[in-house]
């Protein structure tokens, strides 16, 4: 049976698990990188990045859990 695309309008105030993951994906992976900025020398910041990236690598997987109209719950983080 044919399915319809899902539309996520960013900034529309309708955040769900997937749109939050999408937002975090962009925040961490898109944009200008300044070579030699303090990011690489601050251990705490490195942890921020690594910690979030562990979750963000699962964005594409999480999207697979969206069905046509029936939104199954996301699996627990360990399975993503």
């Amino acid at each position, binding site marked *: 049976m044919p399915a319809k695309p899902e539309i996520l309008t960013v900034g529309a105030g309708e955040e769900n698990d997937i749109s939050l993951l*999408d937002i975090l994906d*962009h*925040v961490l992976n898109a944009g200008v990188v300044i070579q030699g900025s303090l990011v690489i020398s601050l251990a705490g*910041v490195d942890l921020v*990045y690594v910690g979030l990236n562990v979750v963000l690598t699962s964005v594409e997987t999480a999207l697979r859990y969206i069905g046509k109209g029936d939104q199954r719950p996301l699996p627990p983080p360990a399975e993503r």
Partner: protein
Amino acid sequence: MLLLYCMASEAGAPPAPLRGVDGAAVEHADEAGVRCYFSRLESLPARDAREQALGFHQVVSAVFRSATVVPFRFPTVLADEAALRRWLGERASAVARELQRLDGQVQMELRISAEAAAAPAGGRAYLEARRDELRHLGATAQRARDAAGDLIAEARERETQHGLRCYCLVRRADVAAFQQRVGALELEGARLLVSGPWPPTEFLAPDVVNA
């Protein structure tokens, strides 16, 4: 230290006073027509990292609502305002060029993945299934681009672990029409998530992205 959010044209009015990551005031520095938004932070602790990232997104979104922006990747940190002024002095003209080139345009994204299927047995069967799947996803991406063809100034595609991502540069005024046309597609054997509008980061010149 300074946490950098994004850059926009100096010509536009800055959004109303903003609070950024950890409630810090959002300030800006101007150079060669480029306005750079930042906050002064004592530290960037690992705890509350998710909230900090979302706070970062809210600032970029507030600027992006009324202007074309070039965001920084979170977390991008410089030591102080002197370091920021030095960096802007070297880079502002290239950023201004990109802001002008992309003015009024936003990035819409298509995430295309295959419907879940049983894993094929054997290496050869897997490779053939993967090849067929990518062909099907590519055809789906093409259908989506065709549906909104006249609205797309430029498109780029990238293969991911689970499918394809397609980035489309469209005018901000055409976002609703883009969503409507792509949203009307009927899909067989594929899932499609349309997200946006985003700042047009995939269309930035490489010398601006890796600065």
